[in-house]
């Protein structure tokens, strides 16, 4: 049989497919055929490499060449040069943002060096539509070992020992959750996978389902065995068509092999899964609302207790876990609880996947050990702040979280430290901000989201968040007063204490944390009417620097409200009272004579 010498791994994730990775696959294949290299090189479509910003990605192994931003027309050159002659196509290699050097081997990219891939172990490595590749990497072996050789309690004990905590936001210990569900007595129980992923900016769950759907299916079956459930349901947002497709293919293949269905591997254990589609409401990610939505009711949260583990879907005990939580499970059973708990911090074991975004050089999906510092994530993996600007803050935990600043750069990241710092892990969004970002606007952005997504069931969240948003809006438009800051703080506390579900209980966090860390910036808005970051349009002050102005009059013609006056070849002036802060003059001036503050 022919032995391939090279595998060309082409990213088939949502990001790269949007930039034509499917055509790239076709072009690579046809060029390989043209040159008669079919027995030498194999093209494989994989899941996301996490480097979507610079996609489409083509990685060639075994030499670990990492080509970025590949276009369909580059394929012939890749095959002719690299596959045939062993010469890498330099211009497509990743360029280190600091040294501007091309990096030949992805092992040497800062982006990957500090990563430990457990949940993402197969993403960008196997073909997610081919169960054989999953099995070749020990897929379904954990399930097989457990259902043929372990009691449910033994397996639960391993989960408890591993220290795995839920990755959906709350961080509840997974083993304990399973144990509670296993002890509930009922004729039917359910395993639910929460793939609602509503946090703006997070896409780790989507990437896992697209890149390694079998790991989630296998883990759900393991959970079913542990808690005594034969039915699993994946609740996934309908906006994830590719993840849905890959999940369906994976489930079909597992069924064909008898790895889902009746009497799996002759063990007597039966399990199968089905899919339910969510309309993409953020609140439906909250587990009680999710269960209501699955029952065909309005997606509104209910009071806990009773917890889903006692009374969940259709009133039966239901174990809800997040996609990433599940993706860790098979690896824990294959490599052992001790291995897993050797990674991470005292109370947060293993790794966490983060979606790095914002003003950072390497935007993407990363998986790092718990306990890594923000500094390592932002300046090493992330390659530092874009355009050499200054780091200001990073928002973690999305709309439920808060921001961390310079002084937190060396704090080890884990569940408890993030909470102590006034933020939270959340689903793992990490938005990096630089000196140009206004923190009041950041808080306003998240409140806009919460107001939009509140289900409206309880007053503190429905009305309170709207008020918070109005005040933030007022401050950003230059009409705020100092008392507004205290008002924001008080109202935030009331909402946190009285809202019914996690959405409202956490929605004021971005406000509180920006006030805490950037009090001066709020003060500047309300007292001096200045936005120090220069981002709030209404607070910008345009003036002309007399020593730079040549009197060319270009700005006079650009100004829509005739706010600029002056004699030809003399310094001009802007009438602040007339100026509508549109920025047209600033764009026009060739002599950088217009100053914005």
């Amino acid at each position, binding site marked *: 049989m022919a*032995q*391939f*010498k*090279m*595998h060309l*791994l082409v990213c088939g994730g949502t990001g790269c497919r949007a930039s034509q990775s499917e055509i790239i696959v076709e072009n690579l294949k046809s060029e390989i055929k043209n040159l008669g290299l079919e027995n*030498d090189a194999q093209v494989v479509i994989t899941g996301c490499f996490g480097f979507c910003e610079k996609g489409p990605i083509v990685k060639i*192994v*075994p*030499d*670990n060449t990492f080509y970025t931003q590949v276009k369909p027309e580059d394929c012939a050159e890749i095959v002719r040069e*690299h*596959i*045939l*002659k*062993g*010469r*890498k196509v330099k211009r497509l290699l990743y360029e280190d943002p600091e040294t501007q050097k091309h990096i*030949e081997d992805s*092992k040497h990219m800062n982006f990957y060096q500090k990563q430990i891939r457990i949940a993402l172990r197969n993403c960008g*490595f*196997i073909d997610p539509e081919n169960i*054989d*590749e999953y*099995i*070749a*990497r*020990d897929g*379904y*072996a954990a399930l*097989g*070992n457990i259902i*043929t050789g372990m009691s449910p309690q033994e397996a639960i004990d391993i989960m408890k020992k591993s220290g795995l905590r839920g990755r959906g936001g709350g961080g509840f210990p997974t083993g304990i959750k399973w144990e509670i569900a296993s002890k509930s007595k009922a004729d039917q129980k359910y395993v639910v996978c929460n793939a609602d992923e509503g946090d703006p900016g997070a896409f780790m769950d989507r990437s896992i389902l697209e890149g390694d759907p079998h790991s989630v299916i296998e883990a759900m079956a393991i959970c079913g065995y542990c808690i005594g459930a034969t039915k699993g349901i994946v609740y996934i947002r309908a906006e994830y068509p590719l993840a849905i497709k890959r999940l369906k293919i994976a489930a079909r*293949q597992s069924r*064909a*092999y*008898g*790895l889902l269905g009746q009497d799996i*591997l*002759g063990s007597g254990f039966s399990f199968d899964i089905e899919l339910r589609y969510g309309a993409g409401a953020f609140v439906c990610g909250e587990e009680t609302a999710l269960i209501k939505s699955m029952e065909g009711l309005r997606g509104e949260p209910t009071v806990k207790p009773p917890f889903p583990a006692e009374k969940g879907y259709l009133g039966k005990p239901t174990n809800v876990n997040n996609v990433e939580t599940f993706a860790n499970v098979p690896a824990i059973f294959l490599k052992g609880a001790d291995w897993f708990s050797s990674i991470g911090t005292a109370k947060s074991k293993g790794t966490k996947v983060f979606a790095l975004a914002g003003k950072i050089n390497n935007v993407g999906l990363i998986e790092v050990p718990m306990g890594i510092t923000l500094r390592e994530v932002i300046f090493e993996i992330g390659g530092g702040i874009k355009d050499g600007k200054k780091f200001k803050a990073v928002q973690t935990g999305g709309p439920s979280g808060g921001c961390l600043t310079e002084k937190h750069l060396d704090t080890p990241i884990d569940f408890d430290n993030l909470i102590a710092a006034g933020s939270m892990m959340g689903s793992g969004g990490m938005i990096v901000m630089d000196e140009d970002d206004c923190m009041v606007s950041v808080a306003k952005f998240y409140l806009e989201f919460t107001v939009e997504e509140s289900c409206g069931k309880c007053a503190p969240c429905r009305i309170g968040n709207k008020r918070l948003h109005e005040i933030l809006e007022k401050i950003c438009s230059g009409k705020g007063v100092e008392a507004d800051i205290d008002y924001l703080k008080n109202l935030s506390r009331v909402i946190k204490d009285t809202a019914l579900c996690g959405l409202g209980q956490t929605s004021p966090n971005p406000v509180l944390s920006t006030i805490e860390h950037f009090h001066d910036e709020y003060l500047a808005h309300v007292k001096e009417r200045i936005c120090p970051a220069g981002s709030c349009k209404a607070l910008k002050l345009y003036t002309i620097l007399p020593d730079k102005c040549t009197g060319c009059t270009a700005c006079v013609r650009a100004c829509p409200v005739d706010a600029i006056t002056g004699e030809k070849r003399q310094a001009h002036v802007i009438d602040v009272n007339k100026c509508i802060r549109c920025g047209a003059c600033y764009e026009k001036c060739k002599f950088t004579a217009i100053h914005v503050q």
Partner: protein
Amino acid sequence: MNKIKSLDDLRKMKQNLEHEMNIREKSNEPESLVQIRVAMATCGIASGARTVMNTLVEKIEKDKIPAVVTQGGCMGYCYAEPTIEVKVPGKDPVVFGNVDSQRAIDILVKYVVNGELLEGIIPTNYQTINEKK
């Protein structure tokens, strides 16, 4: 697709499937493996580098030798093509010239597996084209 009926069947299946993933698995930890680079640019191909590469890959797979084969561009030893560079973990890389299939097997069995010295090593103060830049 046939159903997998037992854990044993699953394990057997895994064993049959895993060699297709070998190249990818090896790329995950190249430092712990013997890395062999075959010079492939036009002069190399003309002089039979591709055949040498095939031989190496097949032998490594068959004997389960912990080595990984990659292609490189011309190393600048056109007079001695095909050339291959062998880097055993913890040792300096060495370059062998005038390698044909028979010599390729010798290099694998004698130098890589048994650690014997072999003739035909090109003196080492060399730099590959890639390193010169």
